């Protein structure tokens, strides 16, 4: 099995204000992936309006790359090969909402086992 990161690209995060319906669709999809046991980790991000970027010694408001689509969230899935990974990632609802996903093999990673208070 190989781990693939799925980066979600959209106009903005579904966690922005007034996008509750959109968010619900994504939550449901995340649950399906969890139930199918294909998801390793998943993170939804707050609205891009809350992003801050650092380039060189300059700190600026907004996403790192100024583009029509920004990263709205990402998750890691496990699949036997790219075709299987593309099938899982291709079911992401963002694709029906005018956005898209990027699928990249994971080279390595770390998640702290338990949260600290």
């Amino acid at each position, binding site marked *: 099995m190989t781990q693939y990161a799925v980066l979600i690209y959209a106009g903005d995060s579904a966690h922005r204000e007034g996008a509750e319906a959109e968010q619900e669709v994504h939550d449901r999809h995340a649950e399906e992936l969890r139930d199918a046991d294909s998801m390793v980790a998943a993170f939804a991000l707050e609205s891009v309006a809350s992003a801050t970027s650092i380039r060189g010694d300059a700190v600026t408001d907004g996403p790192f790359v100024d583009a029509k689509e920004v990263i709205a969230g990402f998750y890691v899935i496990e699949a036997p*090969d790219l*075709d299987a990974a593309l099938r899982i990632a291709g079911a992401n609802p963002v694709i029906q909402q005018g956005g898209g996903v990027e699928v990249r093999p994971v080279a390595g990673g770390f998640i702290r086992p338990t949260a600290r208070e």
Partner: protein
Amino acid sequence: MLAATVRVTRDLDLAEECVQEAYAAALDGWPGGGVPGSPVGWLTTTARRRAVDVVRRERVLRAKLPLLVVPEEAEVAVEPGVGDGADCVPDERLRLIFMCCHPALGQEAQLALTLRLVCGLSTGEVARALLVSEPTMAARLTRAKKKIATARIPYRVPEAADLAGRLRGVLGVIHLLFTAGHAAPSGASLMRADLLDQGVHLARVLNELMPGEGEVRGLLALLLVTDARRRTRVDSQGRLLRLDQQDRSQWDHAAIAEAHELLNEEPSRGRYVLQAAIAAQYAEAPTFAETDWARILALYDELLAAWPSPVVALNRTVALAEVAGVERALLAIAELETEGRLAGYQYLPAVKADLLRRAGRDAEAAVAYREALALTSNEAEREFLSSR
């Protein structure tokens, strides 16, 4: 042979090495011990055994090898007597084609990998065929192989749900290779014979591997008919000849007959089948004057419904001019110009210029010819346009 070996190694470079070693072993052993009953089978078995050895050794060396052998496949590989390989190899070749034409690879990489791995051209030959320097091609191939390994692009025929879409991609690659050979985008000679041969060869192989696929059969028929006119497309000085000037007795009538047979048995009406049917209409007319333009126009209408491409709409205007007159065709051209999807496409002003010339509107024709000339970089096509 390479296809059978890569299935064991899941690593193209390693597989290529193993095949070379099998050849070396043959050079060593055959002169003294005699050539085995099935030389290809012997080489394949030797290459695969070598691959299994290497993969096993590496597995011991490294705790975690990224390109592991799938266990059941390793068992197949070491099983004695897989030697003759006659019935497993076609399947392997199909897997290789689908891997090389995977949509996760860029189109240039798909073309290069197909020529290198499916057709067996050397890196230098691929570089010359696709008009890039050898180091550039070597880097392109390395990058593509690396992506196949890192992203785990699978070495198999896609599942039924994906097959139609993926097959379209494979057909597109073969058609593109052929088209690149047919009207080389730049350079002095109009055609590059090596690409034409490889294109026809690939279509033929695919048609053998996937019998009953209408569009595969259609593509093979299309390439055969188009290629049948190869010898007559340019004169002895390399100048482009129009269809009505070509010597029909020089056409490859065996190829045209083969295409005719392929299409006769084919009930489906997909893009390639229809394109082939149109090309066959041109090729089977005994003289240019006897071309059945009404039939061709009807086929174009059908094609336009199956594949609404502006290039098809442009080609349709040529038949329309013969059936309904030059002025009607010019109206259709004007519509295409307004639509704008063909902006910068050299054949639009070229077709328009020819129609204007036939309508006796010489001044406008000259403008269109100059416009076409400015858009083409193939020397033979430039000379044709300048002479008009």
